[in-house]
């Protein structure tokens, strides 16, 4: 278990309980279960207290937790017959974006998402979930295909942002993101987006101009990272706590602002503590959202989606 900075006191207690039990295993005459159980209860209370009212910055840290389930985990658990389809037919296949055909609940769909990787090797291969233009162009191609064959598009958002690299810029990062957003908005099939971790700026929007947008309870979705915002507006990257707060990047604030449709509850202590449970919760939410859109005609799906974005932001937080 990887502990976040604010979870340190918790780490101590859970560590102690584990130590006790290890001791008991080595020495069969010792009975530590009572003590260990007391520590467990203490840890449980502390965990609940810590997660009861997470600040925006803490949520940002949870959203970035390395052990949080990623796109690949969701695809493996929620979909069957996943058949990855690669390449943008133009330059390359971007491993930061997973995409392909799959069945959800038996029904064929197109699934697209950012994948961050889970160890050094896969993180480098996935470019830490930061897509290049090829990733967005692959997504455009898949969305086009979904449109032609009437398959719903399910996207899983988890990216720090689009990759700020030389080649990415040369090959038209802006254009690729703009076209991907446009494609989301023009296809006549349901588009359902779920922010499962980090919804980083334009790189996230490109897959999230959807009929329904859901967020996991401790995920974040923002125009800029708290660190980036702090260094620009506070001239001090260390002011990320203040920036995170000011940006209103939590699922709870975004729902108040009318930007997202639904919040998916996470297991106590965040998705990283019980990945499979978190994934199931997302699966249920996707199922519900798909149902809400079933039977809608392509024209209605397009019109509703556009209207949703045109109407967005007409009321502020105060309203």
């Amino acid at each position, binding site marked *: 278990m990887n502990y976040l900075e604010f979870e340190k006191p918790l780490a101590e207690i859970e560590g102690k309980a584990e130590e006790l039990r290890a001791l008991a295993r080595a020495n069969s005459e010792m009975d530590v279960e009572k003590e260990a159980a007391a520590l467990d209860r203490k840890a449980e209370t502390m965990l609940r207290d810590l997660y009861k009212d997470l600040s925006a910055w803490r949520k940002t840290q949870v959203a970035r937790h390395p052990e949080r389930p990623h796109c690949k985990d969701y695809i493996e658990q929620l979909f069957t017959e996943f058949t990855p389809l690669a390449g943008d037919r133009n330059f390359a296949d971007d491993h930061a974006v997973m995409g392909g055909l799959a069945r959800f609940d038996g029904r064929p769909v197109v699934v697209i998402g950012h994948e961050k990787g889970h160890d050094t090797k896969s993180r480098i291969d996935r470019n830490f979930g930061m897509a290049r233009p090829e990733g967005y162009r692959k997504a455009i191609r898949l969305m086009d295909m979904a449109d032609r064959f009437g398959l719903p598009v399910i996207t899983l958002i988890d990216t720090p942002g*689009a990759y700020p690299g030389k080649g990415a*810029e040369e090959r038209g990062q*802006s254009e690729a993101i703009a076209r991907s957003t446009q494609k989301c908005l023009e296809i006549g099939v349901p588009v359902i987006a779920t922010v499962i971790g980090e919804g980083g700026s*334009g790189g996230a929007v490109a897959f999230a101009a959807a009929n329904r947008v859901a967020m996991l309870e401790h995920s974040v979705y923002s125009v800029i990272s708290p660190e980036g915002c702090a260094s620009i*507006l506070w001239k001090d990257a260390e002011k990320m706590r*203040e920036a995170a707060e000011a*940006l209103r990047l939590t699922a709870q604030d975004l729902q108040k602002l009318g930007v997202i449709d639904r919040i998916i509850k996470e297991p106590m202590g965040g998705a990283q503590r019980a990945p499979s449970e978190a994934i199931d919760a997302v699966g249920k939410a996707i199922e519900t959202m798909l149902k809400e859109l079933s039977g809608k005609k392509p024209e209605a799906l397009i019109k509703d989606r556009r209207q949703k974005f045109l109407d967005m*932001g007409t009321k502020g*937080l105060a309203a």
Partner: protein
Amino acid sequence: MNWISNYVRPKINSLFSRREVPENLWTKCPECGTMLFHRELSDNLNVCSNCDHHMAISPRDRFTALFDGGIFTEVKVPEPVVDPLQFRDQKKYPDRLKGAQKATGEKEAMLVAEGEIARTPVVCAGQDFAFMAGSMGMYVGNAIVAAAQRAVELKRPLILFSAAGGARMQEGILSLMQMPRTTVAVQMLKEANLPYIVVLTHPTTGGVTASYAMLGDVHIAEPNALICFAGPRVIEQTIREKLPEGFQRAEYLLDHGMLDRVTHRKEMKDELVTILRMLTNQPPAVKGDLPAPVEEAPAS
């Protein structure tokens, strides 16, 4: 040209800069350092007469030079909620807004107008870099939607002059949501089969580039304009190497296939009209500075 051209030679200019420069009368070219007299500079559309550097120009000044007789009608932009997030950094957002309004004399970072250019009816939207770096928030989004709706209503092309440091951070997620929102505006134009021309001016970066600024039928940029998604400094920090000369400048993007043309500001008007009249299947325009259109002129 006129008497003042004597003064723009760098030698004299260096003499000049040692003395007190009367405020507002002279502008120093940030590129070559030449001191430029204000009237000559504005006659030249804020382009340095010595080195051709294109300085920022306000949408109002640009429109005055662009529309026949300098006459245009502003298109009303619906007012968004002010400070929707109650955002505060070292300053309150409403105070920043007020400061920008005072400095520019404009309400917000985009001006929308309708009128005629070389007798070609158009709708124009211009982004104002002087107003909080032209950043895209709810108002700019509303302006683009209003511009597109007005163009569709009048069956006219839309010309959009972009200039922005990116998103309006003080509006958080709502500024990000202007990316899909303005994309919907572009779709309205496409569906109505109306030309949408983007003129990218210095600088056009971030979410603005990654939405309406890269979705035009034709992309024209002003010379040397910085056009990018991620800025050069961010990229240098990421890849830890120096970027080549001219990286992300208009000419570089032209070479990489992201733009149709790079055009001098003084030739922009003729070029826009030429393209628009072909796209809308009209005869060639009468070029040059035309007087304002006369309403319902009696047949002679």
